């Protein structure tokens, strides 16, 4: 299995002397579904921003398919659902318009979308079960439905790496389960590498193959079933 993501000796500080990440080593193989969990402020979001090349480590190296992450040549194959994703602007963008934005990099910038791009948009909307709501403004949907629309947007770009940062924030428990099942199905259908970031690892460990626990550095990396019981105690996790 070739490596999709490789972090080696990565440290990062927004301010000198205050490391958010310290000496992180992480390898993610192509097609793996990995949950990156840990307490709030533990460095999870910073870690994925380094993976995506949005931040550069103060020490160490970050690579995507062997290339430096910040200069990765196939960026159009990266799908990203940012933390607390919400629609920009006041205009009532529909599900179809939001998902179409996911074809920006792959479908070219000038003029309207071509037929093939429109088909991929419709396919992505169908995959998340929103076909009937394609012309509905996203803001009028529930939190869970909105997240589905954003996941479809990321899927429309046919990503080889999909990064979802806290996709269940603000979503009710039932929708969280349903989103988890959807991601599990999409992973087996698409074979993309998925990094799923969450501070509630209890919610994700049922459907991922590998759990990485981050608290400034990696404190656990393995199958969720082998996670020591002490990490299920919130007082220990957040200490």
């Amino acid at each position, binding site marked *: 299995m070739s490596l999709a993501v490789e972090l080696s000796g990565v440290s990062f500080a927004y301010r000198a002397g205050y490391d958010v990440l310290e000496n992180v080593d992480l390898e993610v193989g192509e097609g793996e579904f990995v949950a990156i969990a840990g307490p709030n402020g533990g460095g999870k979001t910073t870690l994925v921003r380094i993976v995506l090349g949005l931040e550069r480590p103060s020490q160490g190296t970050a690579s995507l398919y062997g290339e430096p992450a910040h200069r990765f040549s196939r960026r159009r194959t990266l799908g*990203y659902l940012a933390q607390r994703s919400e629609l920009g*602007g006041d205009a009532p*963008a*529909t599900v179809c318009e939001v998902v179409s934005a996911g074809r920006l*990099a792959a479908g070219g*910038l000038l003029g309207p*979308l071509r037929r093939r791009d429109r088909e991929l948009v419709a396919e992505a909307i169908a995959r998340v079960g929103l076909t009937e709501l394609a012309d509905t*403004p996203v803001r009028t949907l529930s939190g869970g439905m909105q997240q589905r629309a*954003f996941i479809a*947007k990321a899927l429309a770009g046919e990503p080889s790496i999909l990064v979802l940062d806290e996709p269940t924030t603000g979503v009710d428990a039932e929708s969280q389960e349903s989103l988890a099942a959807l991601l599990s199905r999409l992973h087996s259908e698409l074979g993309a590498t998925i990094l799923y970031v969450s501070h509630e690892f209890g919610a994700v460990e049922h459907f991922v193959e590998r759990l990485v626990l981050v608290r400034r550095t990696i404190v656990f990396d393995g199958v969720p079933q082998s996670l020591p019981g002490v990490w299920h105690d919130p007082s220990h996790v957040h200490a």
Partner: protein
Amino acid sequence: MLESEFMRLALGAGAVVGVLSPAVGFFLVQRRQSLVGDGIGHVAFAGVAAGILLDISPILTALVAALLGGIAIEFLRSKGKTAGDQALALVFYTGIAAGVVLISAAGALDVDLFQYLFGSILTVTRTDLAVIAGLGAVGLTTVGLLYRPLAGIVIDEEGARVAGVPIGALNVIVAALAAVTVALSMRVVGILLVAALMVLPVSAASRIAWSMRSTFLLSISVGLASVLVGLTISYYADLPPGGTIVLAAAGAFGLALGASALRGR
């Protein structure tokens, strides 16, 4: 009204600005940068003053100053050196202060600045109309070709950045489009009201539209209608055209708000 050539020219110039202003303003309003047009307008005032001082066409120097101001605002904002509103304030006040100093240096404080501050659409010549129509066509073609990426950035700028969309270049293009729009709108509504046609039609359309694309198209319709209605009222009621056009756009916003409230019942 249409038998007077000055009104035909005014309606032609107004129609171009009425369509272009909301088409460009749409992307500024959606990105919470509604006052960028105003900031650029104040820099354009410095350009007008420089033109008077150097005895060059004030419209040309205003266009150059507006382009520089627009790009400066975008640079200060995107590099994170200054918060968006502070970047705007910096350009805003520097522009107006430079304008006052330059006008004074030209010994031209007695010049009729009103035509620049409040517009002079009834003095538009055939040559002016050709320039306005030419630059307007370039602006509208650019917006038409780049609608999708510009709308995509409004929807999710960070996602587009990760996927390698050239955000910086597109933002500079929006700033340049805003500058051209400001320079053209100066003749229609004046520097002090220059941003109104970029903002009010978009705000009105957002209240009643059902999608992003319909908001964009409705904004343009409201902008065009505001100019035509405003000019017509100003002709028959003998009112200043610039102010009347902006009041028509404000009235359209009020109507849209009412329609939205009725629909919500």
